[in-house]
């Protein structure tokens, strides 16, 4: 049935249905386009001189010590660069945690696995990525290593770090030794600040790595120990290597144990000394031990409150002998009266 033959209401309904279908189709296309834009990838546009092959290589850098190592075994993907300079890596197979990667190109006639460090022909740069990353890259002035990241915050910081390092290198090219040292120290301090304030662990460590921290550890140990404390839950190979190079802090737990041990030791020592003192014979006991057998008998009678006469009778000895013994007892016990003898503690 032709549309023109339909009553007005039916025509209106048909038109509405057609319009809705078109709208649905378009919205579906828009949706799929957005979905495509949200997929994890590394892509971008680069402009290159004709000396370079139109191909990019992505290498995994498993350890910071491998940053300037070139091996085919490190290359995990390659992407053609089309005539407009566009390239793209699908990265949904990458680890879910951030890792360090290197993008490089190679010269025509050279091996695909080639690294050029320094100079205008430097052929690589580093990025941090994971399986969910969406990284867009553009290069500037046909220099491959001079790149800009469109929106990825982590790699914008990486780029900033690399720019600082380039400034250090350019100073080393042209300045005197003393000026170069000053400038290098100042820039390294700036890199340490970035590492300190950055909230992405691997990016933060990248900044430290570029500051050549190994020569600074002895002078600035506290800083590095605080850094490790900040990222104590990081157990990637990158952090393991870094942690192994920084001397461990004698932490609070150790000092608490030390204090507890000291207290225990003090108590132990106290008990030991006290025991020894207790075991030591009392001064009065010692004095009693100085009495002879005869004097001890008389001492016991004196304690009982007996007079010289009663002692003389009890012991069947003369009074003068009793007096002589009593005098000797007084002297040995360092007392002056019978009352003191009665109160004398055995």
């Amino acid at each position, binding site marked *: 049935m032709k549309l023109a033959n339909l009553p007005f209401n039916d025509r209106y309904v048909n038109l509405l249905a057609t319009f809705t279908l078109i709208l649905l189709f378009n919205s579906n296309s828009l949706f799929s386009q957005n979905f495509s834009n949200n997929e994890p990838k590394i892509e971008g546009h680069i402009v290159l001189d004709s000396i370079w092959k139109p191909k990019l290589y992505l290498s995994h850098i498993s350890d910071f010590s*491998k940053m*300037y*190592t*070139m*091996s*085919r*075994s490190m290359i995990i993907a390659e992407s053609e660069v089309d005539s407009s300079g566009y390239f793209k890596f699908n990265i949904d197979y990458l680890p879910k945690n951030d890792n360090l990667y290197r993008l490089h190109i190679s010269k025509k006639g*050279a*091996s695909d*696995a*080639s*690294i*050029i*460090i*320094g*100079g205008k*022909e430097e052929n690589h740069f580093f990025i941090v990525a994971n399986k969910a990353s969406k990284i867009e890259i553009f290069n500037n002035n046909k220099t491959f290593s001079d790149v800009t990241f469109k929106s990825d915050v982590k790699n914008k910081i990486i780029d900033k770090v690399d720019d600082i390092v380039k400034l250090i290198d350019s100073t*080393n*090219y*042209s*300045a*005197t*030794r003393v000026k*170069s040292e000053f400038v290098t120290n100042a820039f390294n301090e700036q890199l340490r600040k970035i590492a300190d304030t950055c909230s992405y662990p691997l990016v933060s460590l990248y900044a430290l790595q570029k500051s050549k921290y190994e*020569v600074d550890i002895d002078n600035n140990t506290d800083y590095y120990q605080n850094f490790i404390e900040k990222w104590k839950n990081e157990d990637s190979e990158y952090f393991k290597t870094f942690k192994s190079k920084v001397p461990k802090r004698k932490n609070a737990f150790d000092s608490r144990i030390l204090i507890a041990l000291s207290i225990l030791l003090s108590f132990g020592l106290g008990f030991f000394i006290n025991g020894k003192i207790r075991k030591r014979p009392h001064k009065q006991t010692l004095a009693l031990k100085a009495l002879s057998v005869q004097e001890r008998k008389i001492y016991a009678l004196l304690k009982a409150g007996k007079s010289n006469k009663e002692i003389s009778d009890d012991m069947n000895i003369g009074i003068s002998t009793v007096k002589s013994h009593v005098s000797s007892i007084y002297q040995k016990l360092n007392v002056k009266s019978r009352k003191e003898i009665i109160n004398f503690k055995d």
Partner: protein
Amino acid sequence: MKHLFSISIFLIALCISHPTIAQSSTFDLKRSINLTSNDKDDQSIILNVIEKTSSLGLDINCKVLLGSLKIEIYNPKGEKQGEFAVESQLKEKLPLNYDESQNRELVEGKIEKIISDPIAGKWIIKLIPTKTYASIKINSRFITHN
């Protein structure tokens, strides 16, 4: 009188500028080294930098076909100034039918460095091979002022 003054100024300027123009010299030193898998020990290439050197340029290029090679640059204080390593996937020996012209297993590394006002003394380029079959080219440029 006016001419005499101009001539005097010209002569003075010539005298002042002459040393800076003439008393600077450049010399290049090039070395090529080939390592085979029999070369197991580290090798050190020593560059003597004299006091008056204002710039030291280093350009080290290496190609590795077998094993691995690490190159490190040290200043006279023993501080590392640069390094890189190249590793071939072939670890033991080249396959009998290996075609070198195809460069399939070749790995290349290059470092360019210019050091302004370098520390005088022995700069060392250390080559650390591991069962390697490699060729290395070292170009060094010394600019001195007298």
